[in-house]
């Protein structure tokens, strides 16, 4: 059983501060949906509104088509996984998992059985009688998920649950979470500030900034076709050029910058000033100038990052630009101090406005 969630024109104010501004999103049943944004962008507020700990100031929230305004957290078909997991330290694991059943008056034998089944599901058999303090970070994670699943929620809400883990474990748990979601078919709403997490796990991602949802799309679209500068720079690295749009036609435009004339895709500026964004891995370094979109630069530093090599360069006007070369031996890495040309494909660069926030 899983339910979809609809937010219609949802706003949330704390005093004079507007934490969430006019959020509209429709999350499908069984979907893995992530809200991605920096801390303070309002993503946790959205989660707490869906779970029922805070009420929206305006707008409607529907879970499975039903308006849930005024319903308390324990009356909603949602289960929340807290950032610090909030496992009950004084109860053994199986009581933790079956707590939601205990308060519903389910008898002990049934609860115990259910707890053990769920431990099986999250790949932690035999831990039923352990205490919370006996588990590693990753194991606690699984217990938290099992506890949330025990009440058979239609929607799981996860508030940065991986943030306390080591890098390696975090990557392992991403796959694990995704697998559990697929196995159970429950709708997952996932909150994170880690773009890698959001892109790797989600069916769709909603990028947020200062209370507003900037873009909702699948991970590939978010990365390759960001709608504005905020999305482009929050999700991945960019070289940014300031300038002026000229000759716009058929989705392409030429862009005049101090570095010269560039050609790139034209985003939806809606009358606002645009900047040109191009990702470091979409640039090419050559000894001679390319036919178009080419900037002469001096290599200032080379940093070896493992799977790729970052070339840091300075243009004649003093701008810092970066190019990333794959470490597969196909590209020649220039020497430090050498003069080269950096160029990019017009289809891979975009002219975008800044973030969509209220003036």
């Amino acid at each position, binding site marked *: 059983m899983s339910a979809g969630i609809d937010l219609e024109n949802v706003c949330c104010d704390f005093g004079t501060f507007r934490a969430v501004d006019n959020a509209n999103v429709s999350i499908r049943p069984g979907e893995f949906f992530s809200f991605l944004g920096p801390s303070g962008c309002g993503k946790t507020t959205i989660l707490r509104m869906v*779970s*029922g*700990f805070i009420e929206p100031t305006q707008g409607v929230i529907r879970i499975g088509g039903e308006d849930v305004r005024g319903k*308390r*957290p*324990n009356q909603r078909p*949602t*289960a*929340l996984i*807290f950032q*610090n997991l*909030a496992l*009950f*330290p*004084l109860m053994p694991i199986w009581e933790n998992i079956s*707590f*939601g059943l*205990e*308060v*519903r008056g389910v008898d002990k034998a049934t609860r115990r059985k259910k707890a053990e089944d769920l431990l099986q599901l999250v790949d932690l058999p035999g831990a039923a009688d352990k*205490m919370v*303090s*006996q*588990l*590693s*970070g*990753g*194991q606690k994670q699984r217990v938290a998920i099992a*506890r*949330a699943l*025990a*009440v058979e929620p239609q929607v799981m809400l996860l508030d940065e649950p991986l943030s306390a883990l*080591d890098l*390696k*474990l975090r990557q*392992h748990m991403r796959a694990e979470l995704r697998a559990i979601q697929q196995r159970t078919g429950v709708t997952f709403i996932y909150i994170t500030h880690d773009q890698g997490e959001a892109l790797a796990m989600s069916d769709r991602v909603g990028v947020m900034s200062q209370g507003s949802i900037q873009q909702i799309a699948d991970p590939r679209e978010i990365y390759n076709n960001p709608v504005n500068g905020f999305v482009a720079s929050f999700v991945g690295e960019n070289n940014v050029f300031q300038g002026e749009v000229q000759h716009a036609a058929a989705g392409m435009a030429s862009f005049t910058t101090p570095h010269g004339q560039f050609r790139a895709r034209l985003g939806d500026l809606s009358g606002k000033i645009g900047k040109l964004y191009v990702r470091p891995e979409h640039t090419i370094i050559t000894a001679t100038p390319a036919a178009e979109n080419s900037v002469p630069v001096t290599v200032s530093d080379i940093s070896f990052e493992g799977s790729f090599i970052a070339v840091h360069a300075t243009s004649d006007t003093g701008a810092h630009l970066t190019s990333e070369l794959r470490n597969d031996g196909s590209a020649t890495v220039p020497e430090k101090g050498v003069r080269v040309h950096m160029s990019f494909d017009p289809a891979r660069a975009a002219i975008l406005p800044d973030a969509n926030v209220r003036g």
Partner: protein
Amino acid sequence: MHKFRQNLAHLYMLLFLVFLLAPLVVMSGAAFNDSKLPSVVPWRGFTTMWFSEMIRDERMMLAFANTLWVAAAVALLAVVVGTAAAIMVNSISGRLRTILYGMMISTILIPGVVIGISTMILWTKMGNAMGTEFFLFNPGLHLSVLGQVSYIAAMVMLLVLARLQSFDSGLEEAALDLGASHAQVMRRILLPHLYPAIAAGAAVAFFQSIENFNVTQFTRGGSDTLTVYVFSKVRSGITPTINALAFLLICVTLVLAVLYEINRRRRARIEAAREAEARRAEEAALL
């Protein structure tokens, strides 16, 4: 030089312990001295007669029973009130919190004499005004209980509040989210976390009540508690039965202290073993 100062410090510690514990040893010793006056010098020979005499002292036994029920009542009331006050103070903020908290802790600083007299006057005047003979409004140990609770509750409150500081209120939200009612959250999540502090509070309240003299002295009417009885004995003619009593109380205290220490060490060992297991699991996961 450093070594010398360190030894000096150890010596000072030792002297301080002697200063603290020697009076208790002297007092206990006098319980076994075959002398009409409670003292260890001159030593007139070993006897246990003061213990048997103590058992025969009916007033003392009655005072002992009174002390126990007063202390139990104080512990119960102070724990209930103090815990409620701590939870309340912990989840309000701003001016109201400052005022409430300030009033609560200032009760610890009010002299016992003042508490005793004010409690006594209020309840007896109230009885007079209503023209009732109901026991609540007459002097007696029940007024001692009320007077003692007025400041002992603050001690319990401080202990529980300290424990609340280490409580993650996210656990309450998690329980609510899993469908628990407010009463279930209180019973299954919050109170279990507070039990160590509540137990400590009950113990402190119990001992504070036994030890209380000032409040009891002014409110007790004609009844005795152990403290009041010992006091009157010390002022009038005294026999070493008091020492016999003191010796027994010290023994009880020592046994309780040792039990507490053993329990503390056992818990520390268990917790350390659990953390070690968690660390091993962590390392295993990273391989």
